[in-house]
């Protein structure tokens, strides 16, 4: 049978970075094909080439056996290729129907076409069991439902080849399961699905074939039934990886952080955090599990001083944190830092680093008042010595203190942030999504650093949406949903289904 898509010797470079090098493989019609690889392995670039965002420097793409040049996404859509992006391309304040029609309005007069489209949408929803109300407004929908709208949009535009880019990153376990059911149904109807992910379990669960990419090349291709997670992981990284990292025995010390009855409401009195009670002791890692956007970010912002809570009490080493009577959090993070609270922010490019500053300048970010000489000016000699030491100790690559940090890979940027925060010897470390956008090799090194910190007696509060990461690091797990803590469990009670239910908002029981 003719493959639905065939890549032949695709190469693409961005400046010095060879994003794709001589990539060749084919995707069978009516199959679910996984493309797996670390961040920066070239999966997204390849899919962007297929979808017409980028043009390959060389090579050929065959669709249904025909060589095609796809210069724009319009041409891709015309060939029946649809893409569901990791970040949804939806207009929040429009209805599902209007979002689907956007770009396919079918003429100047909307009304007639709208009725027709609505009918067609209801048909599609019924046929593929997509539970979406065409007249609902996007902003009222859950993340899972928004994703279904994206899929609906592609089906409506008669996509036969559906590319899904990290579709489960924002979903709960239950939502993931229902997405997979939909995908299986598509497969039965003869559609071809390309699933881009870095989660090995998903590949094992749903794909027929898998292509592993590493450093822009195809590192391996196999039928899913004939491989194991370990084999795939080794192919992705190019070397065997340790599945269990060494950690000392669990010996929690005094309570470093004690949050009681914390509340946060926004300007419209919407509850963002409600009744949060939480304790983190010295020498333990407490992980907050949850789908992103359920209050974890707000909690971390409050604990790091970036945001003021509406009410509640936060004790740090037995003393209340100095935020009462404040009308704004200006400068508060500096005060918290001085007390011994380190913070690796969730969104490192937004909060954690200044992209335009050099690596060296970023190693003192937040601590700029501690590196002055007696003239009150920067002690560049000390800064540069400290920086060289950190780059060495945390294995940041390249070891060039003067390069702009924006030019480093995500993993190395994160290493700089962690090095900076660890080197200040905090008593409490707040760590938000430490391995988001970070490749597997670096994940291991970051996890090792965090566990070492724990063994040294630092209290660590971790927020992660990756259950794998929670499992790898946590001593205790707190699950958050809708701004509340829905459950707590010890690491030996780890149970994906139970955590999934708690993440979905099922209450303590």
């Amino acid at each position, binding site marked *: 049978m003719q493959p639905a898509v065939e890549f032949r010797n695709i190469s693409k470079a961005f400046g010095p970075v060879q994003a794709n090098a001589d990539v060749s493989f084919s995707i069978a019609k009516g199959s679910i094909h996984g493309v797996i690889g670390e961040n920066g392995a070239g999966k997204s670039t390849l899919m962007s080439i297929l979808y017409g965002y980028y043009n390959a420097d060389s090579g050929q793409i065959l669709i249904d056996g025909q060589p095609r040049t796809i210069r724009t996404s319009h041409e891709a859509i015309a060939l029946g290729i649809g893409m569901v992006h990791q970040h949804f391309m939806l207009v929040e304040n429009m209805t599902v129907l209007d979002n689907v029609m956007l770009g396919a309005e079918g003429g100047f007069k909307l009304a007639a076409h709208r009725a027709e489209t609505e009918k067609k949408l209801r048909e599609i929803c019924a046929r593929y069991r997509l539970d979406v109300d065409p007249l609902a407004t996007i902003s009222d929908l859950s993340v899972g439902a928004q994703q279904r709208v994206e899929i609906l949009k592609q089906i409506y535009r008669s996509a036969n080849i559906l590319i899904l880019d990290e579709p489960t990153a924002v979903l709960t376990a239950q939502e993931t399961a229902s997405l997979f059911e939909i995908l299986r149904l598509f497969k039965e109807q003869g559609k071809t699905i390309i699933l881009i992910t870095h989660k090995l379990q998903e590949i094992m669960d749903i794909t027929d074939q898998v292509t592993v990419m590493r450093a822009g090349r195809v590192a391996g291709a196999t039928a899913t039934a004939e491989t194991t997670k370990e084999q795939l992981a080794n192919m992705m990284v190019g070397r065997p990886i340790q599945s269990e990292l060494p950690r000392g025995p669990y010996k929690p010390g005094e309570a470093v952080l004690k949050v009681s009855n914390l509340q946060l409401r926004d300007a419209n009195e919407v509850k963002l955090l409600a009744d949060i009670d939480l304790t983190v002791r010295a020498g333990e890692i407490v992980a907050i599990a949850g789908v992103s956007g359920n209050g974890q970010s707000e909690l971390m912002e409050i604990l790091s001083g*970036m945001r003021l809570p509406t009410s509640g009490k936060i004790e740090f080493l037995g003393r209340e944190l100095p935020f009462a009577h404040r009308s704004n959090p200006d400068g508060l*993070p500096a005060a918290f830092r001085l007390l011994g609270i380190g913070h690796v922010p969730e969104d490192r490019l*937004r909060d954690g680093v200044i992209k335009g500053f050099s690596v060296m300048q970023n190693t*003192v*970010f937040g601590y700029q008042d501690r*590196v002055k000489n007696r003239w*009150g000016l920067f002690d*560049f000699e000390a800064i540069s010595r400290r920086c060289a030491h950190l780059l060495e100790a945390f294995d940041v690559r390249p070891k060039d203190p003067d390069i702009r940090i924006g*030019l480093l890979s995500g993993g190395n940027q994160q290493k700089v942030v962690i090095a900076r925060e660890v080197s200040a010897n905090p008593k409490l470390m707040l760590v938000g999504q430490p391995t988001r956008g970070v490749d597997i090799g670096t994940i291991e090194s970051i996890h090792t650093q965090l566990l070492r910190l724990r063994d040294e007696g630092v209290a660590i509060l971790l927020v992660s949406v990756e259950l794998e990461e929670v499992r790898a690091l946590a001593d205790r797990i707190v699950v958050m949903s809708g701004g509340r803590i829905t459950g707590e469990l010890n690491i030996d009670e780890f149970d994906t289904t139970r955590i999934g239910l708690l993440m979905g908002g099922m209450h303590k029981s």
Partner: protein
Amino acid sequence: MKTTELPRWATGFVLPVLNLLSALLVAALAIHLLGESPAESLTILINSAVINPEGLAYTLFYASTFIFTGLAVSVAMKAGLFNIGAEGQMYFGGLGLTLAMLSLDRALPAWLLIPAAMAGSAAFGAAWAFLPGYLQARRGSHVVVTTIMFNFIAAGLMNFIIVKYLIPEGEQNPASRVFSQAGEMPRLGQWFPALGDTPLNVSFLLAIVALVIYGVMVWRSSWGYELRATGLNQHAAHYAGIKISRMIIVAMIISGALAGLAAVNSIMGSTHYLSLNFPAGAGFVGIAIALMGRQHPVGIFLSSVLFGALIQGGFDLSLEKPNIPQETFIFIQGLIILFCGAMENLYAPAVLKLINATRKG
């Protein structure tokens, strides 16, 4: 190896020079269309603005004012604020200076009077910039809009103050009285006779000092680090514990003080009285200088000298070539702002290609 980023020598030197040449090329075309020889005009311009010592003195005199307004715009720009209001702040600084002069110039000796007048100019300039800064930091009113408006308000207010209160009795000219001799900035000509009887004065040296202080504060102090962090990424600056609102207000105050100090050169160095519309666009030239000089002390100095040379040379050029009106200076200035500011990366792709091509071969 291919590179996607231009090296610093290219962004800092090659691009500005290419942009400047492009601006001059268009200017040459215009001069040609006016029926004059561009080459000859350029010779006259350079001769009168740089080669001739007196001309050079005038060039540096104009440059002294521009260094201050350029610094004013630059320091705000480093904090991510586009201060369009240097013109109004300089104008208001002139008022502060004049009030200090009018009340003290007959009582104090020069060594006390000059610092007092300078303090007056800095304080009034700072106050005029504080308001937009405060509105931006605490109320979110965009500083571009407010500073533009404050230029108009300053112009109207000064008109009123000068005409109503400052014109000496019996005079028609809308200007204050002439200050006493103690209020004159010492001219450099008295130490360097080659400079002749030109208004180049100690303000030029003060401008150089200001450049050095600016360079040290912005790149070598933790305050400057926080200023630049605020300008590049406010979220991250907040994360780092920087008080953003305060930083914005302080940056605007410093910016306004520097703009106010620009009045010292033009008033105390030359006219010795406050006159209507004395800034004559120097505040706006400061924007061009900050953009073209990339807020770097050396860049600010070089662009200030360039703009000073254009005024001085353009003036002589219009005297010698009747076909070329004096406004040609404004035309060339506009071209430079267009090429160096709005289209600063025009040649970046080509330069990048060239660098990559030579590296391959």
